[in-house]
């Protein structure tokens, strides 16, 4: 009898909120912790998120990884939680030992140029053989190293760190700058120091640091919960709170096209040029005997705004940022190519056929856009005659 009462009391003391809730918190914490040891690939819709997770310092992505997804879709459809507007496509994304999007063998080949910049360089929604660097390599017959990363801003120390690991045939950096990206400013002393520190870290430490950061900052449980939220905030059960991040517009041919809301706002604002970064980049690369070639890439909104139904009017002094930047860079004797006129003309031509240079559901250019950009750069390739004619790179032949 006494034992039974004791058990009963024990059961009662366990079933108290002061015990159950802390236990629940602990269990949830442990589940979160446990899931962090697992791959997040099944929870991602594209390579970007999956391969950023364990990125070592100084690298763009997790090194030596291959990510494949047969049903990848655009960042804007994901950002705005608009599943009906997704354009599904297959994506294969391979990284080399340095953590950049290149075939692993590229480290054993002679590199003619380093292509640096943001996601337009990395290639979003396109497979390995369709990135800008691959296209350029194919067209030119030489190897172009893809050093694109999510950090849009390029720091020469990072380029040098990559360059030290490559066999360079020539010392050319092609810097892609996309309209809509943040206006770059020279890095702080701390950032330069961090870049140098990362470059000097032993490989094993860098990899471990990347994994640790991924473990601490990326929670698969958070991704799962985020997915659940998006399923509920779908615009019918609850208002879609994500939709405000994108602008859904209609093209003259009736096709819907998504744009990033901030990009649209930026385009219609007067933005002041800031040339400090470009001057600093040129001078710093020069010190290391690198030439700089700048390629200016128009944002999707700039290209397709003329073809939108109910487009916003353009006020004087807005929408010409790249043109002004191009002129300013020329004045600074920095070789520059502005892709805006070329891509605008091509976009108009292809639109008549119902074809596009940018994904309808993504910020980035698609396979066609990438190929056209490569062709335009080919026309202005600063080293075309000097370095890219002798050997034909096997990498360039690889699809």
């Amino acid at each position, binding site marked *: 009898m006494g034992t039974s009462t004791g058990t009963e009391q024990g059961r009662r003391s366990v079933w*108290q*909120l002061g015990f*159950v809730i802390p236990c629940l918190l602990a269990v949830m914490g442990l589940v979160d912790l446990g899931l962090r040891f697992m791959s997040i690939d099944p929870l991602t819709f594209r390579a970007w998120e999956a391969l950023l997770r364990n990125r070592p310092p100084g690298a763009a992505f997790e090194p030596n990884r291959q990510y494949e997804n047969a049903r990848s879709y655009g960042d804007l459809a994901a950002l705005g939680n608009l599943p009906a507007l997704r354009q599904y496509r297959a994506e294969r994304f391979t990284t080399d030992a340095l953590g950049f999007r290149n075939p692993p063998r590229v480290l054993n080949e002679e590199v003619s140029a380093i292509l640096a910049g943001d996601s337009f360089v990395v290639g979003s929604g396109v497979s390995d053989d369709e990135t800008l660097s691959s296209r350029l390599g194919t067209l030119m017959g030489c190897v172009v190293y893809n050093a694109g990363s999510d950090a849009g801003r390029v720091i020469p120390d990072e380029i040098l760190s990559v360059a030290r690991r490559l066999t360079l045939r020539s010392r050319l950096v092609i810097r892609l700058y996309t309209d809509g990206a943040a206006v770059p400013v020279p890095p702080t002393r701390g950032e330069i120091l961090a870049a140098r520190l990362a470059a000097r870290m032993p490989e094993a430490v860098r990899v471990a640091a990347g994994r640790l950061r991924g473990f601490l900052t990326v929670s698969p449980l958070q991704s799962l919960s985020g997915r659940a939220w998006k399923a509920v905030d779908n615009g019918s059960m609850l208002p879609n709170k994500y939709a405000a991040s994108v602008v859904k517009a209609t093209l003259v041919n009736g096709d819907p096209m998504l744009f990033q809301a901030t990009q649209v706002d930026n385009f219609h604002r007067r933005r002041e040029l800031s040339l400090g970064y470009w001057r600093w980049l040129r001078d710093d690369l020069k010190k290391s005997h690198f030439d700089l070639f700048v390629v200016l890439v128009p944002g999707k909104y700039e290209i397709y705004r003329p073809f939108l139904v109910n487009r916003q009017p353009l006020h004087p002094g807005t929408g010409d940022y790249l043109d002004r930047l191009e002129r300013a860079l020329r004045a600074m004797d920095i070789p520059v190519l502005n892709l805006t006129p070329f891509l605008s003309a091509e976009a108009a031509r292809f639109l008549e056929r119902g074809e596009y240079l940018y994904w309808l559901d993504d910020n980035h250019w698609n396979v066609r856009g990438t190929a056209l950009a490569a062709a335009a750069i080919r026309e202005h390739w600063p080293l075309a005659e000097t370095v890219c004619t002798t050997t034909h790179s096997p990498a360039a032949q690889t699809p």
Partner: protein
Amino acid sequence: MLFNSLAFLYAFLPITYLVFWRLTGKMPRYVWLAISGYVFYSFWNYKFCTLMLFSTTVSYLAGRGLLRWQEPGRRRLCVIVPVVMDLALLGFFKYGNFAVANLNEILPWLGSRATLPILNLVLPIGISFYTFHTITYIIDSYRGVITPTRNFVKFAAYVSLFSQLVAGPIVRFRQIEQDFERIDRADRTSDLHTGWSFFVIGMLEKVLIADTIAAVIDPALARYAELSTVSAWLCVLGFAYQVYFDFAGYSDMAVGLGYMFGFRLPQNFDSPYKATDIADLWRRWHISLSSFFRDYVYFPLGGSRGSRLLTARNLMITMVLVGLWHGANWLYVVFGAYQGLLLIVHRLIRARWERLPQWAQRSATFGLWLLGLAIFRASGFRMAGALLETMFTWHAGAAMVGASALVVTLALAALLAHWAPNTFEIRHRWSPSWVASFAVLFGICLFVLYGARPAPYIYFQF
């Protein structure tokens, strides 16, 4: 840092709790509470910690002065200096730009071409609460209601007590003085379950009710011009329950956290939607604020001791100040004046009002409160006008996204707000099946919090 954030639940609370109960003795616990309060506060903006420290120091020194001096002149100085300083801080950060903007409107009328610059000010979070903590301390010390403490750390721990720091309740020193005094003898387990019970209920009120309602009405109100009459009423009704469960939820979590650390914080909401008249509602709504204004503004003005006209004046001044306390905006002034008017009218018709059946009194009180909330929620006079116009003239309008979810949540919210006992009326002795249900609901809250940035509490902006 928000109570409904993972950082709070997984890092701040466990560390603060475990260290607090590992320490023995008053002084180490005061020190720890003060440190944790400042750490908690620094998550918003560490720079404003100095402001809080300044206000604390000035009030503490004034308290020491009141202990030391008995001459009326010096004692008055010990009250006036810190209260003026606190109000100056509050005035500068909260009302500075409001005053400048209004002056800039008035100056051309006076023939001046000068315009005063609008300052780029950030309102330090919780300033409306902790300055009121220190003001009550000084005035109560002056009045002899409390004996000022000689222990600076204890006072700093009181002002920065994290559970009540940023959105109240406005706990007076006398209300928790005893708990501070016996902090070394507090029993960790005696109120633990009650504390968690308050905390869990507060979390459910915030995350499952208030935030769900907000998810539907906020986007709808952002396009208020397109609302139908039915949607406008649903939005205002939704806001009434949102603001109640948001703030009552926060207060319950604060009380629960207090219990976990051996403090009994006072009740801040006493089922206000069960009120039978507007005076009753204000006795039940944000009790710590309304009692502050009652004790430190309304009574010193004369309260209801004078003529009807004087009482009306006192009510109006008090309620306009209550409105203004919520923010530097003429809308809040109008909201306060509206509440003042209701209180005055209620005093005039009290006898007839009380002859109404109770359900009618409650319904009418709630209805009048709703109209005030339409003003309170609006972002400007245009929106307030449009909202009230849509509510009282027929507009077909577009269907509201999430209306079904809103109606279900509102039904649940109404049931809880109008008929269920409040957290101070329940015994917090739960059967295993209730505990299991709470655990499931709390688990859902946690899962929700994992995937979404925690929604800030409405009252944080005040």
